[in-house]
């Protein structure tokens, strides 16, 4: 199925804190037309974070939100220039953020399955290593596209 979903990938993003990143995600989502209100989206991301950390292992975080303000399922990916504290599972700082945005009333399963698959990919050593090495937006997209169908 490929990476057939609305997405925005950015490399060399610099941020000082988790909150900065939530703000960047929210603004990007509104700019790209994925969401209506950046404040509401930010709130939803923070709420999900409070339920349990989305900081995984090896520097990857998957902040996600399900909210009314999200219009279409989408993927926002940031590769950071520096590590950010995220209370992650292995305590390491985060330098790769893959954010999953889910509308409150998502009827179809295709996009949800796709987002879940992206999350699953982050458990594969191979994929994690490739993503860490990736230098450009296109490279990241190519890696995800390749593995999503595997």
């Amino acid at each position, binding site marked *: 199925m490929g990476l057939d979903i609305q997405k925005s990938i950015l490399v060399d993003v610099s941020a000082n804190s988790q909150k900065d990143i939530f703000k960047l995600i929210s603004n990007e989502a509104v700019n790209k037309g994925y969401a209506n209100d950046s404040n509401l989206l930010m709130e939803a991301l923070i709420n999900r974070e409070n*339920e349990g*950390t989305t900081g995984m292992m090896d520097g990857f975080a998957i902040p996600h939100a399900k909210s009314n303000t999200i219009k279409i399922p989408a993927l926002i990916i940031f590769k950071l220039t520096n590590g950010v504290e995220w209370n992650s599972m292995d305590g390491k700082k985060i330098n790769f953020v893959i954010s999953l945005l889910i509308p409150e009333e998502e009827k179809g399963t295709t996009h949800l399955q796709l987002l879940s698959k992206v999350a699953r990919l982050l458990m594969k050593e191979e994929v994690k290593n490739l993503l860490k090495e990736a230098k450009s937006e296109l490279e990241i997209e190519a890696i995800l596209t390749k593995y999503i169908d595997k």
Partner: protein
Amino acid sequence: MSKFTIVAATGCPTGIAHTYMAQEALEQAAKKAGVQIKVETHGQIGVENTLTTQEIKDADVVIIAADKDVHAERFEGKRIIDVSVSKGIKDADNLIQDAINGKGKLRTVTSQNNEKVNNSNNERENDKTSIGRLIYKHLMNGVSHMLPFVVSGGVLVAISFLWGIFSADPTNAQYNEFAATLNQIGGLAMGLMVPILSAYIAESIAQRPGLVVGFVGGLVANNGGTGFLGGIVSGFVAGYTILLLSRILKGMPKSLDGLKAIFLYPVIGVFVTGLLMVAISQPMEAVNIGMIDFLAGFQNSNPVLLGLIVGCMSAFDMGGPINKAAYVTGTALLAQGNPYFMAGVSAACIAPPLITGFSVLFFGKYYDKEERNSGLVNFILGSTHITEGAIPFAAKDPLRVIPTLMLGSSIAAILTYMFKVQVPAPHGGFLVLPVVTNGLLWVVAILVGSIIGGLVLGSIRKYSMEKLKSAVEKI
């Protein structure tokens, strides 16, 4: 169809990421360890890769890595390793090793009570459920299984009274064969109440081996006249006897597991628990007689004191030795031509179910659906003097509920004595109103006591639910 050594279920609140990451982690770890695994996911899209009954049956062990309900009741009787979803992601290798090495707990999970608030921040706290919560869980399991016995039995007995409160007595003019049969069937169902309570408390503690031991212990307690409080004691004694036995017998070779399950646990468990319950029941008759003597001495004292004593006794154990003492004294004095005393006893026996009824009526949103329904049925049971209707409520939280019932019953009894009500019948509740002197005042007395009790009970419930809620939110 291939068989899986391990079956697992994963789930998280949003159901989009962690659920599947845990699945991936467990699958990878199993592959590395060379074992077959099937992982069911509870995500936003619904349940996928669903485990069949046969697959669950064939598996050696179940891993649950979830922060939400994954219908764990399907895994009853299996060895279960139950962790949060983040542990499933982070420690998948260790979990698989634990699974292979025979770790995990055999346990039953009551479906309604499975509100796990697992969270990565407070994993440690959740791994050890607090003792209070554990006791509550065991009580709940007993009560929810007991409830249908109380309702079915109580309602059938209440219906039999429609033919007259003596309709089951062949020597009485009101005798009706059908009513007598209803009364008998209802009586049998209600008679199972205490054994069932005991059996399922024990089952919650020690799973299936606990069931038989708890049941027999409960029967012994019931026949010994200990009432439902004895049933609670016997349930815990039975459950922990089995747990103790399993610890003592731990050293036995695995090949003798079958012998343990069908012979050693039931025989030794029933023997030990039975004897203990006989010993505990022994003094009950003495308590009963002592209380009767005690009470008889007060029959002419002032209405407030008498009402307080009668109210507290009737509502204390609802069918146990202390309640029976009040009731027996009432009927004895009735036979001697004193209809005043019985009026207070009846009021105090009618009030407890009504208190629970008013409590769910006024504070419905703090009760679950099952409780709301049984609270409403209690209006019928209370009105027909079937005090047992209140037992499911009391058994869940005895330390708070029983004093409240005693308060409401005391108010009802005190007012009844002050109004000089005369009740010439020993049973029947409001059905005997036509023969009651000052009947209207009697109803008023009972309603006042029940409504006050209901308000107090509801407020306590509200307070404890809100406390629970804020505790959960803090996490």
